[in-house]
């Protein structure tokens, strides 16, 4: 198994769909482990897992140049793995161990690995958006060709930082791409109760930048849209707002049973499980078997990862 972060990243960047599926299954299995460990009391604090949203991080990570800054939120485990972090590094941090990517100082909400451009994930809603604009200013001044990616949830589009960052990036033509993972809920509130528009991408008009909606369950669509936005930014044409429509199959955090879902909503989205859709594209005759075999492998790997992390010293 490859454990070097840059090499893991390169696997995805090959553009190979099988690698993408492999990483998505890895993330799914990882997050399931995290939830189990949390319920067992082995993870302190809180966790925010991303089952159901895997195509977004995997799709984007496969087109971002290694080292270009990516800024995400507390719901960042999938991003960590997609960007290359080895599972021990991510789980180690989530469990507060010395083997974690910051040795247990940060925890689940603050993963990072500078070597692959994974900036510290931020737990204050929206705060990473202006920071991403600043990273893009650095690139603009240096002319280093880097494009910064800022990731946030649908709930973040009502906070001032979102507005200020998008306007500022737009008037300054900054090389930054804003990617909203619209999973329909901010904590326990559905988007329609908090947000005056249902398509986040429509807010791009307020900043005179392109707003693109993409099916967040289809990794190749995400890839294509992200690539276009990155190219546009790199060419000096400024930011794009991408809205990836997706869904989290689990609660917001910790042990949230997600009772606030609309009836049937979960089932509808599970029918569009990104793992299934991709497996069906790769192996239309037996997608479930493909997933099952990858799952098996990752279950085994993850069991080892858990052992390693549990055995690792506390800081």
């Amino acid at each position: 198994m490859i454990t070097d972060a840059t090499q893991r990243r390169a696997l995805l960047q090959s553009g190979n769909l099988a690698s993408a599926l492999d990483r998505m299954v890895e993330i799914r299995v990882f997050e399931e482990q995290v939830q189990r460990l949390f319920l067992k009391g082995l993870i302190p604090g809180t966790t925010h897992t991303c089952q159901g949203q895997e195509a977004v991080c995997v799709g984007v990570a496969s087109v971002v140049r290694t080292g270009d800054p990516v800024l995400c939120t507390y719901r960042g485990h999938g991003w960590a793995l997609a960007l290359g972090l080895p599972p021990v590094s991510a789980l180690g941090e989530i469990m507060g161990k010395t083997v974690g990517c910051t040795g247990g100082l940060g925890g689940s909400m603050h993963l990072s690995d500078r070597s692959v451009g994974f900036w510290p994930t931020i737990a204050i809603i929206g705060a990473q958006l202006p920071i991403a604009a600043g990273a893009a200013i650095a690139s603009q001044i240096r002319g280093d060709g880097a494009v910064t990616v800022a990731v946030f949830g649908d709930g973040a589009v009502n906070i001032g930082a979102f507005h200020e960052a998008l306007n500022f990036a737009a008037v300054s033509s900054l090389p930054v791409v804003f990617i909203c993972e619209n999973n329909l809920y901010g904590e326990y509130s559905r988007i329609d109760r908090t947000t005056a528009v249902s398509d986040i991408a429509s807010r791009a008009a307020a900043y005179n930048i392109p707003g693109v909606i993409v099916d967040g369950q289809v990794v190749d669509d995400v890839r294509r849209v992200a690539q276009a936005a990155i190219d546009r930014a790199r060419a000096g044409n400024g930011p794009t707002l991408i809205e990836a429509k997706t869904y989290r199959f689990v609660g917001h955090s910790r042990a949230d049973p997600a009772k606030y879902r609309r009836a049937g909503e979960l089932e509808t989205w599970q029918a569009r499980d990104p793992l299934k859709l991709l497996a069906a594209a790769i192996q239309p005759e037996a997608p479930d078997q493909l997933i099952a075999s990858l799952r098996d492998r990752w279950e085994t790997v993850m069991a080892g990862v858990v052992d390693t992390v549990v055995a690792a010293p506390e800081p």
Partner: protein
Amino acid sequence: MPELRMNQAIREALAHEMRADPSVLILGEDVAAADGVFKATEGLLAEFGPLRVRDTPISETAILGAAVGAAMAGMRPVAEIMFVEFLGVALDQIVTQAAKMHYLSAGTFSVPLVVRASAGAGLGFGAQHSQTLETWLLSTPGLKVASPSGPMSAYRLLRAAIRDPNPVVILEPRALYGVRETFDPDSVVVDGLGIARKMRGGDAVTVVALGQMVRLASSAAASVADRWPADLWDLETLLPWDHASILESVRRTGRLIVVEENPSTGGWGTEVVSYLTERAWSSLKAPPVRICCPDTPVPFAGKLERRYLPSETWVADQIKALCTDGRRLTPWWEAYAQ
């Protein structure tokens, strides 16, 4: 008498004031349909309806600004800010708007709002969700700030805060939401803000604590009470704090220990220490001592986080050291730095 968790006590206080006064309303993220992230507003939507119990977008500036506006218009809003850190995106509305409007309008407007925010470490929430941050608020004329030490304290402070004509921020130690206490809400005397609570009487040393440090200071004081009985105070209200009671105590004991959950530099205890030193100088028999946290962000990993917070042993040892030979103990990190 019911046994209530702190979050339930808060809910009772809210329900009580909402029943008594139709101008009281609640707003915040997930406070209505979801009963509050810390379940401190459970069932209130059902009882008081969506006009008075309002879920909001993730927009702290809008939440606090709306509270300011509703209060100026004569309502008594109670805004929930899930974690006190989130005030960082909206402090303006509390410090520069709410606290100044009575003055700026020459008294024609008042701003009777309450902000409830969870605060403090101990739950493994990491550096951006574990601070107390009293000092963002402390030096603000026109504002009141309080922090409960348990269910009854939370109940009393919140009811007093809602009735207060000034803006009040209540910092609720979130590690205490699940702590239980048996008391009868109806017989709690709501005597207003600004009153320190004597938790234990003694003449050897005055110990002042706030929030979740009160329990720790209590156990510590109890453990050495037979030899060095402490006059132990729960400050409860930090702004304005109870000058008279603590001054009287320090004049009597001649010794002062402040137990704080905040970084050593600039923590709220500096206000208490310097106020009392200036005014009780001739009574002091030993240097006033602050017990607080090191000057680092709050660490995530459990062991580190426990180390970060003051310990009961430290408080007990410091009581002993101060009473026996007037000595300030060196905090572990100062020793470490040497």
